[in-house]
């Protein structure tokens, strides 16, 4: 509970000078947050474009896609996509989305911008580390994208890069020579950036809270960012050595992941002693917590916005925080559910399946608390609250398909089918993104001083909500019939009857992607021409709504805020009053009847 004047405090009291210091190499957590957001925006549009190419190819496999040869002459001779280029696009789509969108936007972008403000701090604990973490992320992005421009193209092993395919080098296929090494380097740099970022979040949360801001008085999104940073610290710490070992196998002749006796092109590979399962264990030890890194901040943001829209706190602040912590803890002991049929000991599969099923419980608690809090509330519908409500629907949809995949016996049938792809897209690819959208519509006025256009926002919501269900719900049905994933073309006999479903999905994907252009247009237009935003347009109680829109460089103008309440002093049982800011010493009219 040290205040902002302690020795841990930030060393800049003077405003930044000059264009470079203000907008490029900025130490200001707000600018860094926006930089992360901008990077995520670029990454998401590239990744959406790649997904369009994939969907078009799946439905019209041997037809030319006009202009594709400009992206890759080798990958699209005569504009017809080759099987390996499909896999390159698939790999880059996944890598961009999981790392540069889903880790960046809900966590790094919004967390950087709002965590310090919501706890009453002037900036993060280590602004220089913070700046480094963004620019390292940017370098990682550039290294990854450069794989598009080398002759053999990006790697073809998927974002999961399983060994030995990813480890043996170019003999195993195009894109597996330099492309895979670039991927390994990019992700290793990303890991370092994330570790720096997480350190910052944790130190800031523990040390820089304003007077009166106890841990339990932090908003739920702050809690979510803090918990996520703890997960990220341990998870990325394992992915980093995994990527280094992979690169060593590729360029230094080591054999961490390559056993002996492998034959490619009739040549025996000169490796021995490695374990392919070791890569899977290391990757998924990171990979499973990673998906909670993607969803928890979104859940926190949605909780915060939902409370504001409901004009009442959730049924229990403590239980929500406890559930998030339970999810975070359990996320470390379930990674083997990605490996049920991987060849690891089948007893391990059973062992992993139990915590995987149990993680349903805190997730259900969260969902029931959200739903139960809507009861008896005074729900206000805005673009932000629509996305928050949509998040709940998508979290449920994506979550229940997890029931199936958590059981090894059912996984025998559903593993590596479109059922899995539908599951993770609904819960990560859509629900988490809805958290980002909700956060954007909610916090845009604070960050820019302008309001976004509500009509366009609602239109964006409807197109995306209905469109996303049209795309990803059918994936589950395809999974039920055993449609295998990561196929560049559907040549198997049993898949032929389902090509019509794939066509429907492709049209939905193209349409839903197009709706995102409305969002982009709204962002850009409103940034410059949107109506001026008041200090607190949503009548929200947390600290960011006590300062100007946009905030000054040191957030609170040199004043150290003092906090008197928890962040959710909205009208409660029996009350007709509405809200009290955290910094307002006045008490809400009626006693709280629950904590």
């Amino acid at each position: 509970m040290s205040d902002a004047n302690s020795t841990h405090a930030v060393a800049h009291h003077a405003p930044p000078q000059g264009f470079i210091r203000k907008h490029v190499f900025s130490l200001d957590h707000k600018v860094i947050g926006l930089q992360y957001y901008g990077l995520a925006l670029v990454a998401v549009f590239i990744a959406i474009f790649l997904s369009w190419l994939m969907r078009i190819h799946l439905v019209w496999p041997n037809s030319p896609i006009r202009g594709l040869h400009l992206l890759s002459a080798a990958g699209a001779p005569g504009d017809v996509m080759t099987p390996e280029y499909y896999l390159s696009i698939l790999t880059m789509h996944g890598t961009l989305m999981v790392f540069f969108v889903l880790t960046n936007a809900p966590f790094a972008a919004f967390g950087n911008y709002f965590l310090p403000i919501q706890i009453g701090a002037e900036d993060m604990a280590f602004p220089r580390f913070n700046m480094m973490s963004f620019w390292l992320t940017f370098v990682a992005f550039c290294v990854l994208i450069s794989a598009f421009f080398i002759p053999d193209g990006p790697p073809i092993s998927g974002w999961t890069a399983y060994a030995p395919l990813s480890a043996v080098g170019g003999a195993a296929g195009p894109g597996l020579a330099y492309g895979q090494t670039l991927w390994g380097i990019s992700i290793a740099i990303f890991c370092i950036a994330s570790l720096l970022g997480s350190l910052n979040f944790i130190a800031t949360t523990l040390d820089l809270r304003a007077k009166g801001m106890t841990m339990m008085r932090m908003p739920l999104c702050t809690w979510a960012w803090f918990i996520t940073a703890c997960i990220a610290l341990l998870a990325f710490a394992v992915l980093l050595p995994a990527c280094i070992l992979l690169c060593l196998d590729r360029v230094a002749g080591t054999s961490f992941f390559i056993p002996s006796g492998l034959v490619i092109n009739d040549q025996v590979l000169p490796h021995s002693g490695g374990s392919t399962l070791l890569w899977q264990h290391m990757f998924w030890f990171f990979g499973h917590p990673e998906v909670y890194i993607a969803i928890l901040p979104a859940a926190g943001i949605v909780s915060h916005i939902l409370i504001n829209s409901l004009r009442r706190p959730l049924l229990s602040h403590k239980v929500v925080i406890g559930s998030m912590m339970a999810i975070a803890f359990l996320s470390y002991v379930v990674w083997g559910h990605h490996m049920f049929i991987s060849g690891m000991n089948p007893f391990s599969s059973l062992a992993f399946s139990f915590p995987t099923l149990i993680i349903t419980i805190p997730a259900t608690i969260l969902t029931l608390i959200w739903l139960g809090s809507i009861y008896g509330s005074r729900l206000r519908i805005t673009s932000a609250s629509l996305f928050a409500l949509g998040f709940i629907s998508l979290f449920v949809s994506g979550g229940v398909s997890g029931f199936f995949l958590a059981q090894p016996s059912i996984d025998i049938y559903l593993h590596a089918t479109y059922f899995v792809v539908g599951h993770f897209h609904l819960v990560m690819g859509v629900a988490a993104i809805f958290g980002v959208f909700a956060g954007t519509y909610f916090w845009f006025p604070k960050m820019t001083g302008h309001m976004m256009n509500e009509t366009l926002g609602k239109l964006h919501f409807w197109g995306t909500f209905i469109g996303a269900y049209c795309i990803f719900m059918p994936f589950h049905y395809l999974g039920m019939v055993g449609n295998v994933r990561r196929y560049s073309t559907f040549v198997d006999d049993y898949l032929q009857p389902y090509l019509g479903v794939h066509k429907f999905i492709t049209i939905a994907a193209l349409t839903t992607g197009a709706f995102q252009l409305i969002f982009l247009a709204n962002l850009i237009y409103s940034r410059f021409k949107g109506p001026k935003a008041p200090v607190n347009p949503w009548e929200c109680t947390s600290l960011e709504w006590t300062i100007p829109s946009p905030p000054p460089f040191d957030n609170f103008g040199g004043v150290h805020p003092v906090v008197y309440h928890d962040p959710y002093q909205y009208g409660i049982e029996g009350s007709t009053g509405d809200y009290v800011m955290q910094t307002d010493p006045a008490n809400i009219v009626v006693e709280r009847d629950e904590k």
Partner: protein
Amino acid sequence: MGKLFAVVVILIAIASAIPIFLHWYPMAPDISAHGHLIDEQMADTMAEAGFAFLAAQFLLGFFVFRFADRKDPGKIRTFPGGAKVMVAAAVILVGTEVLALGILGQRAWAGQYFTPPAPDAMTIQTQAGQFAFYFRYPGPDGKFGPQHPDKVNEGTQNYFGLDPANDVESRDDVVTAELGVPVNKEIRLLMHSKDVGHSFYVRELRVQQDFVPGLDLMVHFTATKPGKYEIVCTQLCGLGHYNMKAYMDVMSQEDFDAWMKQKISEQ
């Protein structure tokens, strides 16, 4: 607009459930001895997950319909029981349900992985390599000849790296591109990968198992219905992954014997 949201959510929930209720996308027909346990598990899970899905979406819809943009501000009310009820519901209802699924589901898993094949099961080896499956039968001596990675030669169809000139056991091994099995006979399938990770998946057989380079694995199954079924690779193995498949031909014993004779003559 809150009411519109409620209606859309409920419609989406119903529309999503219809293909399941009407069995538009059924699982592939089960032709295995052990598959019924998996199918029962699937049906139980579908019922419970389906109920949870519909209940949650309907609750979301109803609550938003009732409480969004209310003209009469009214008092804010708390859901009866508050958070305690939610925690109890999650732990008791969902908790017991998922644990039941997990415990019951053990049987299907145990049947496949903790129960060894019968001693008289027919042993066949399958090798996965970019981008085809090949199969090897041990022949009359009942033994598989050793594999020599340095002798693998695709041009002469020596996919297994056999050396019949020097290895006696290899001479009667039968290598095929199709997995021929007699119906109702338990098969012990040894799995070997030539190069990278692959996976063996036959939907109708309810069998899926990864090939792990460096680790020789085994699955066992009994096919109960004659016919031709596709074996497809489900572990991303390179550019030809989409085109990596073979046919499993389940035949009567007489047909199998005739097929084996034909294959021996082609060696």
